[in-house]
């Protein structure tokens, strides 16, 4: 089947198998920031946006993004770098495998919350697993990031 969609502001028209998953579709197009960390829709590493909403690309059929807008980390370079700096400063990037998915979800959260509480953050990001950091350093980084963003607004 043929699908047409916009990924990171570029139009793609491709012939795909009906059971192709979005994660494998975007990776095949070179968007390698999108990673697979589990088999059970549970880790959040594969987070991308479809029509601006964060979803698990491992659990979406590519056929379902026909005529829709997909965003991966590659499409949000500047914003991602800003978040990345906070993570690095708190020592929250260890192996870094979880970062692309985490950053995509932090940036999605920023669109819904201006000044999130610690509980808001924990809740919004509960579906992003990290096997290295123990989450404390991530949480510090994210709180500082939102503090600064709040002041800039």
């Amino acid at each position, binding site marked *: 089947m043929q699908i047409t969609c916009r990924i990171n502001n570029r139009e793609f028209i491709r012939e795909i198998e*009906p*059971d192709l998953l979005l994660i494998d579709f975007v990776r095949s197009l070179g968007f390698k920031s999108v990673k697979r960390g589990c*088999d*059970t*829709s*549970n880790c*959040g590493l594969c*987070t991308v946006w479809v029509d601006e*909403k*964060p*979803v*698990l690309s491992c*659990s*979406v*059929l590519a*056929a*379902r993004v026909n005529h829709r807008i997909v965003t991966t980390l590659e499409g949000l370079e500047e914003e991602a770098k800003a978040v990345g700096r906070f993570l690095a400063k708190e020592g929250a990037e260890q192996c870094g495998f979880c970062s692309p998915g985490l950053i995509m*979800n932090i940036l*999605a*959260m920023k669109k819904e919350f201006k000044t999130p509480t610690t509980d808001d953050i*924990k*809740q*919004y*990001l*509960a*579906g*992003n697993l990290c096997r290295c950091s123990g989450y404390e350093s991530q949480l510090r980084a994210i709180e500082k990031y939102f503090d600064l963003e709040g002041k800039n607004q």
Partner: protein
Amino acid sequence: MVQSLDEAYELLAQDRNNVILGGLLWIKMGRKQYQTGIDLSGLGLNAISETEDSIHIGCMTTLRQMEISPLLLQWFGPLFSDAFKGIVGVQFRNLATLGGSVYSRFGFSDVITALTALDTQVRLYRAGVVTLSKFLNMDQKRDILEKVIIKKQVTQTSFQTLRKSATDFSILSVATSLCKGNWKIAAGARPSMAILAENAAGLLSPEPDEKTIKAALDRVVNELSFGTDQRAGAGYRKLLAGVLVKRGIEAICR
């Protein structure tokens, strides 16, 4: 993607290996191979709307949509946001559909527990409109769940659950509601599916004193059955039921 429910049902009836696609999250976990996936995305069934006396939620509505819906909040308080917030993560709940969550009739379902504490019906393509509890106990004929219909009446609610970690399955979930002086107490993940503790709820007055609450709690644990699975034993669940129902009632009375 089908153009109508008639077409969807025709496809479903054609081959046992054809399947309705909700958010795909559960389907994807299995090893079963399917022939044709039937996508209802194009039928406008992904919205929450209201009529004179009820709220209609299409089967393709996501759990996240329900969780942040001002309309649901206005009538039923934070029931759905409290019930759904522990289901994996936001990205997951942007995909998981109401139809897939109800039709799969999981014992552990927080979704079904929450809906059980309200006056809820489901509309099926073949069987028509039936109450949620009738649907849950029906023979599992292949059908399509078109939408969920909830009676529109201001209801005070509380959702209580215990999980081993923030996003694990509930060991036990309890939804409590008070509407026009009538209480409902629904318990799910017992580990079997949610049901109402009708006798216990019947003991409660609109503003129960401590003695009445105690009597209702005793009734709950005798009235409902609890089982054992890898998450917890029946005895533990029974103790937990008393605690969660008490918290639920108190949250509403406060």
